[in-house]
């Protein structure tokens, strides 16, 4: 008997007695007196992220230059042109020298301050991890109220890869002292577009 058969046989044999019905999951509405955008901004800030508006920063590329003084900007957003062409990248490792990565979010989540990406937004998934800093373009209309609402997006059934980013890469594994930029990006900034 294969291991597969042995395991499946045993879990059926050892099935707990009793009836255990699958509960349905109601939609839990989120209290958001400030509105979706303000709730998103506040949640993101608590998780170590930062948000700016297009109005505040003007030309995004000029703002990125001023803010990060980067050598390499790699953008997956057509309107923001960096100096590393993502379409020419053959291996995920090639993005190791990127200072600032730019990507459009599929969704924002007000409850948590998260942004959602799939491989469609990132093009090369390591863009969002090997770069030193991540700049995210998010349309205000793409912000949903809660995590439950985000999971209703068809991407979670169809994308090869889907991820919630909630602030930057972080760790507090030594003495519970918070460090930004554990293995991934050191900062995450969302540019909000109306």
């Amino acid at each position, binding site marked *: 008997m294969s291991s597969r058969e042995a395991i499946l046989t*045993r879990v059926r044999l*050892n099935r707990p007695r009793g009836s*255990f019905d699958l509960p349905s999951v109601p939609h839990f509405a989120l209290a958001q007196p400030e509105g979706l955008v303000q709730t998103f901004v506040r949640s993101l800030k608590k998780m170590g992220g930062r948000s700016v508006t297009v109005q505040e920063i003007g030309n995004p590329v000029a703002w990125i230059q001023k803010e990060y003084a980067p050598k390499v900007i790699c953008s997956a957003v057509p309107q923001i042109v960096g100096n590393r062409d993502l379409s020419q990248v053959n291996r995920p490792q090639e993005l190791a020298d990127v200072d600032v990565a730019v990507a459009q979010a599929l969704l924002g989540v007000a409850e948590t301050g998260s942004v959602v990406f799939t491989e469609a937004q990132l093009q090369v998934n390591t863009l969002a991890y090997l770069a030193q800093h991540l700049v995210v373009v998010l349309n205000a209309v793409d912000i949903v109220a809660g995590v439950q609402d985000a999971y209703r997006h068809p991407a979670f059934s169809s994308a090869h890869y889907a991820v919630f980013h909630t602030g930057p890469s972080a760790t507090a594994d030594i003495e519970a002292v918070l460090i930004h930029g554990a293995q991934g990006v050191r900062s995450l900034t969302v540019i909000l577009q109306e």
Partner: protein
Amino acid sequence: MSAPQSQDAASSKLLHPEVLGDHFEGAHDADGRPLVHAEATSRPIREPVQQEPQPRGAKDRGHRPVDPVEAAGRFVTATIHEKAHDERLWDGRLRRDAAAHALPEWEAMRAIASATKEHTLAHLGQYLAQFEAAAEANGVIVHWAEDAAEHNRIVHDILRTHGAKTLIKSKSMLTDECGFRAYMKGVGIEVIETDLGERIQQLDNEEPSHITGPAIHKTRADVAKVFASTLGSDPTADDIHKLATVQRDTTRPYILAAGAGMTGCNFAVAETGTVVVCTNEGNADLSANTPPLHIVSMGIEKLVPTLAHLTVFVRLLARNAIGTPLTQYTSHFRAPRPGTQMHYVIVDNGRSARLGLAEFWTSLKCIRCAACMNTCPVYRRSGGLSYGATYSGPIGVILSPTFDRAKYSALPFVSTLNGSCTNVCPVKINIHEQIFAWRRVMAEEHRIPLAKAELMRTMGYVLAHPTLYRTAIAAADEVLRWLPHFVIENRFNTWSSKGRDTPNAPKQTFHSWWYQNRIKGGKSA
């Protein structure tokens, strides 16, 4: 300079005020306020500057019983480590409470999570088959492992086929359970843990002491020492930002060069064949997305039926573990990137047998949040390594004996049975009742620790003989009040241990007081 208050600062007093630091050393927001996310505490907790060697864990004696009391005794004696550990974990409990109380649907979600897990475990064959079919339709290669040895062999075979010599991996309790790193070392494959805490433990040759904070029992000085001897950094440079940078800078080259990546699995969704991994560091995403091969190690109990049910677990997990609405990264792997491979290794290793244990099967509901560790007074003051098992704390006490009854026979006795673990469990496992049930199993199988067994035999005889009992109590009280401390607090007195004194004896027994005041004195009650 006064300590800036965190926006989430817990209002209650510290358990050990002497470990309150004077400022937050970690990351701040744009307004200069300290941030409290990932595993960060809501108050600055810092040991006094004097150094103290790290207390080591329980001694491994093969299948002979682990002695958690001996190890905990050494941890308690290392007061600098013990107090900071106690404080940080208790802070985790407070952060959990704040996050839970902020959601009106919290208790409803716990009930749904518990019922969903029970349903899934009761129909596990069906859901495993559904998950496998969905994964294969997505182009994932699925393997089944009966035990730890088969898991390690399967992974080795996959790596060999791909010619991979270096494996980067994110944290997985299952691979710790399988002795995976030791096996790979034996076959000449270099394994690099990418989670900071797990990497520290790997370099120091220790098991993780806590599920979500593997190195939480160590001080910065301990970490600096480990990095100095293994990574060649300056042993006196113990600034935490610099230590984290040392690990980031020394790990990045491995991430870029590795032939394969491995992750664990927090949840596996049967309807879509998706594996969900939660990290704060983004290291699972790096491990899975950088090399051309991604291997997932997952236990059979990780399944949830649908994405709709997954939402409940994702919303519970980080709140209950660290008090944030999500971990920094919640990652969903469903199908391989073009030109690469994804493999799932589905592992039993005793789980299907546990499913058949009427009193203990619900321990399979566990989602590894570690809240039961944070709240447990025994765990907080003993350190995770004192349990001498992969899984420590209250959940470890009920899981470990299913792996080796003899070796972990003493673990059910390192609990106060206060039930706090059960109260904070997000999937409503009756942990303290299972701890008690394991005591009964150990007693029935004559696995009670020797000193405790002798004491219980004597007690049983004395309690069955009222006159003897009264004489014994009166005599014991009299003796206890006059005996010097060192005679009472010794290892044959199982009530007493380091950090727990035998209570002061009363001047008079209740029985003699009753006789004197109610019977002899003639007063009516």
